[in-house]
């Protein structure tokens, strides 16, 4: 249709490791509107915008901009066509002035001479035109975050952006700065610009957007007029469930407490919310929530990788504060890190080396000061078979495996130690369905055999299917505790995740099974 300035049709994007980030995604944006693009982390929003901005090349699909089909090959060609993007992480030179940053890359002057006066004139002109209140002579490093963002927007406008993509612009702003940004965005709209606003903050979307397109799991869920839908409806679109995998799960019989967490801060800010809970033998406690609400801090603190100043963590009664990772692991902790390639494995090391990183110091693997190669080889063969790791040989570098098989190597290492406590942080993120199902079933098996499991996941299917009990994190801290995860409605869960609802402290206190003395 002609009143669409942009339509992206049937975009499919597969990353080199086989992960399908966008599957047949379509997006249409009307000229002169503010269009919200929404969805959970990992839903494919950023990938779609990277395709539009020329940073990624789609496998399939077409992009029409101002009625013509375009093929943005890189960000420079996208900018030339009139598409601008404001990244979440600012791309500015702190030591240069506002004006210099705005004109950077398209500086006035010639033969290598930089005409500073002309740069200031042009920068002032564009600041004037869009009525931004900012001093072009100020150095960027002296600016507050909100003003840096303005510089980013001005940069895009200076390059002639007709369509402006704002990637979660409010995530870094204070409420006052957010209000100011919205005024600015409305001004831009009034001057004929079109804006794509990436956000999962429903209140903000309600406030300034005309339409909303929701993505989930790499697919389009739908587009709606914001005025026609309630926040609850949007939340349901965002966090609804997809295909279910078959998880065989006998009922839980929780035993003694294995891990006890009390008043542990969820970030290093002084006013950070805290979390308290117990996990018992034979129980999987799920932690659901939009990423970035303290899940990483929780996992890293338990694993001994992030020192905690206040609160306490006890594993089988022993306080973990100040203990080394090796001691914590020796006490009985297994840890699947959310960051598979940074923490979970050494990519250039081979499968065998990756399988024994946590246990190789043990006496049984060495004799006369040398490692017992045959024993390690035999164990490796067993683990490759048991965990169905698809590889061409056991000495193959891990980086040559697919994501799912790399994760199986990690899981084989962490699950084979018969540890009483398993910390699984995003155990199936970005891997294929087969490996996902395998890992989820393994988790359930281990808990049925008496292990305590803390499952942190942004994947709602996963937390709802696998967990026995469930904690929910929102931006304000713990927003809910459900003693029986099977009874939780996904709509309800979505509302707690997005902070629309909040349980009382007493209700959340249900996660603590023993009085801490």
């Amino acid at each position, binding site marked *: 249709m002609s009143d669409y300035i942009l339509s992206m049709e049937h975009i499919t994007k597969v990353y080199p490791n086989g992960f399908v980030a966008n599957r047949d995604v379509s997006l249409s944006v009307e000229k002169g509107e503010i269009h919200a693009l929404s969805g959970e982390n990992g839903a494919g929003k950023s990938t779609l915008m990277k395709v539009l901005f020329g940073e990624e090349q789609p496998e399939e699909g077409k992009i029409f901009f101002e009625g013509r089909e375009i093929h943005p090959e890189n960000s420079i060609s996208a900018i030339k066509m009139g598409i601008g993007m404001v990244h979440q992480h600012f791309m500015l030179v702190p030591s240069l002035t506002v004006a210099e940053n705005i004109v950077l890359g398209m500086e006035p002057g010639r033969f290598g001479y930089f005409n500073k006066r002309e740069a200031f004139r042009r920068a002032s002109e564009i600041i004037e035109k869009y009525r931004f209140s900012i001093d072009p002579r100020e150095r960027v490093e002296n600016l507050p975050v909100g003003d840096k963002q303005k510089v980013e927007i001005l940069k895009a406008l200076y390059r002639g952006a007709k369509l402006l993509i704002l990637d979660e612009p409010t995530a870094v702003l204070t409420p006052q700065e957010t209000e100011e940004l919205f005024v600015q965005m409305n001004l831009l709209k009034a001057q004929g610009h079109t804006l794509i606003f990436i956000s999962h903050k429903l209140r903000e979307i309600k406030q300034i957007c005309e339409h909303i397109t929701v993505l989930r799991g790499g697919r389009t869920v739908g587009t709606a007029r914001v005025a026609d839908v309630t926040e609850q409806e949007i939340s349901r679109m965002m966090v609804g469930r997809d295909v279910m995998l078959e998880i065989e799960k006998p009922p839980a019989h929780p035993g003694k407490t294995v891990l006890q967490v009390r008043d542990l801060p969820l970030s290093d800010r002084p006013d950070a919310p805290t979390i308290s809970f117990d996990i018992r033998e034979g129980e999987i406690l799920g932690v659901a929530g939009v990423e970035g609400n303290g899940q990483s801090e929780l996992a890293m603190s338990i694993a001994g990788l992030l020192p905690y100043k206040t609160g306490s963590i006890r594993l089988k009664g022993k306080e973990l504060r100040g203990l080394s990772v090796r001691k914590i692991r020796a006490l009985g902790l297994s840890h699947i890190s959310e960051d598979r390639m940074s923490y979970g494995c050494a990519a250039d090391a081979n499968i065998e080396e990756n399988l024994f990183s946590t246990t190789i110091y043990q006496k049984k693997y060495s004799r006369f000061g040398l490692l017992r190669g045959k024993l390690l080889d035999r164990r490796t063969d067993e683990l490759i078979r048991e965990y169905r790791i698809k590889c061409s040989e056991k000495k193959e570098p891990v980086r040559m495996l697919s994501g*799912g098989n790399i994760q199986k190597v990690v899981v084989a290492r962490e699950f084979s130690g018969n540890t009483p406590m398993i910390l699984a942080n995003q155990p199936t993120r970005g891997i294929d369905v*087969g490996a996902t199902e395998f890992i989820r079933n393994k988790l359930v098996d281990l808990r049925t055999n008496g292990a305590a499991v803390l499952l942190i996941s942004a994947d709602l299917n996963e937390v709802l299917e696998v967990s026995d009990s469930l904690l929910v994190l929102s931006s304000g801290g713990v927003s809910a505790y459900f003693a029986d995860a099977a009874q939780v409605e996904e709509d309800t869960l979505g509302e707690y995740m997005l902070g629309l609802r909040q349980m009382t402290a007493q209700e959340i206190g249900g996660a603590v099974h023993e009085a801490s003395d």
Partner: protein
Amino acid sequence: MKHRTKDRPLPTNRQIETRFTLIRTLVAVGIALAGCLILILVVSEEPWDAFVAFLIGPLESGKNIATVFETAAPLVYSGLAVSVMFSCNQFNMAGEGALYIGGLVASAVAVKLSLPIVVHPILALLLGGVAGAVVCAVPGILKIKLGATEIVSSLMLNYIVLYLGVYILNYFLIDPAAGFPATERLPESAQLPTLIPRTHFHVGTILAFVLCAVVYLYLYKSKQGYAIRMVGQNEKFARYSGIGVGGTILSAQLAGGFLAGMGGASEVLGSYTRFQWVALPGYGFDGVIVATLAGNNPLLVPLGALFLGYLRVGADIMSRRSDVATEVLSIVQGTIILLVASKLFLQHIKHKYIVSVAEKRESLAAAAPEAAPEGGEANA
């Protein structure tokens, strides 16, 4: 499927990578030698004689071959030292200073102590190694405790070590009768015996090659070596796994420094009559070249060191027999290192090959459907 397409099994990705590393090194050597030939053609009156002297000279006689080994020995020590430190991803350049101080300490032991015949060189070698270990530990400790980049601190440290050594030589060890800054003659009891007459092929030369196997076992078959390599490959992973990162980094520097220090001791005790280094000998930096050629693998270090030794002896013979100076060698060395260290050199050919093998594997898997269960393919 008329007949089986796989007479030979398809190479695994690991085999492809190994092959390409070898090919890349050989191509780099070839290009460097070709460049060298062109250079000689330009500058020399008798280019052919010069080139023959350069390439054939080192292999002409048993004595020359022994000289190649003798030249390679200190390079083996320093190559091993650098390999251990680089395996831990520590670009510690203090091997140079460690080798220097190892030679000095060994000479001090030789001239200041009088000990029986076998004990004397062994003690000198060991104390030389210990002195080297202390030197290489310094950048390691600075990095662990203060976050100082080891490459800068170690380079600077080399000069501190050198001038400290020169001071010690001039004030405590100097023999005024020598007529130049040097220690007294090293006593017979402390020297490493020469094994081939009229060369400096000595016991320390043999020891260097034996150490390659020892260091291989240490790095690849012991748990500390494993820890060193894991910290080198991914420090976060090592930390996550419970490996003590700081201690591992330090032990790698100590081991590397010990090897370098021992190399200096062996060189002085075997090939010199007096200790007379008043400048850095350069072996420590040559160790970087050797380790790069060997891909930090101790078992390949002898090959790298011998190759470098061969080029040096060749350049030496060439300069004696023709009008081409030994400095040509630096160009050859530089070119090889540049090409071997460039990860992208020949990369596109390798990538194409991996993709084509992956496709063949796919079609084989498609032909035999029972062999394609869940899980992804190895990506190229």
